[in-house]
């Protein structure tokens, strides 16, 4: 039986569907009986989704204005 520590170490490969068939079976069997690891996999996924949608840094007004100007200049030439 896979230990919890080894199970969560495969968390990323499991989510990204990179595990071989038997590894996946082994992992699924562990997840079936272990609520802690099941939660971990769910939390890892939530973390990934959060990172993909997170807004950690907004551009300054000045940056936006500068880029809009650049965009309009280039667009008008094409």
């Amino acid at each position, binding site marked *: 039986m896979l*230990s*919890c*520590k*080894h199970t*969560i*170490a495969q*968390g*990323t*490969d499991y989510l*990204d569907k*990179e595990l071989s068939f038997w590894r996946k079976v082994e992992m699924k069997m562990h997840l079936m009986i272990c609520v*802690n*690891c099941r*939660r*971990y996999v*769910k*939390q*890892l996924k*939530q*973390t*990934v*989704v*959060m*990172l*993909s*949608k*997170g*807004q*950690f*840094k*907004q*551009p300054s007004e000045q*940056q*936006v204005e*500068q*880029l*809009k100007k*650049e*965009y*309009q200049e*280039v*667009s*008008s030439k*094409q």
Partner: protein
Amino acid sequence: MTEKALPPEDELVERLKNNDVVLFERVVKEYHSAMFGVAYSIAGPAIADEVVQEAWVSAINAIHKFEGRSALKSWLIRITANEAKTRLRKESRSVSLEAVDENWATDTRFTEKGHWAGGNPEWDISSPDDLLAADELQDCVKKHMVKLPDNQQQIINLRDVGGLDMDTICNILEITASNARVLLHRARDKMQQVVARFQRTGEC
């Protein structure tokens, strides 16, 4: 989070090619954060802003050639990563797996036999939307993202924040797929722990 979703990809690109400055501004605001994360992790904090600005300028000049073989966001992220790479390279770009595994033996979450030492509690804030709406938590995530080792920071920014596929990432960072997978997991695991600790203790 965005108030309004951007139009579908085809329409989006078409309108950007046709001088739609209102839409352009929305695109800048939507993707700037992810581009900044990538620039920061590869080129460092001092020139990250500059790199993103230059990446946008390159994108503006190349948008009419964009054929939509990848998503617009992936295209912008790739431009940013390449721009960042041509600039300052952090002194050590070598991928050390020893450093990656140093915590394996001393991971206090687990007993010697590899069982959870104190269990793994359910999160109070658990949907991605609720996680994103918790400002203090987001500040905490941000703070810890930049504390990750360089190579982990680069991978998690390119993959999870930037949405690139692993092949592209391996090319950009010049590392093997297996190293990339290990590093990505270390980074995600660390961020899971940051969120878990915040939920448990209310502290960052």
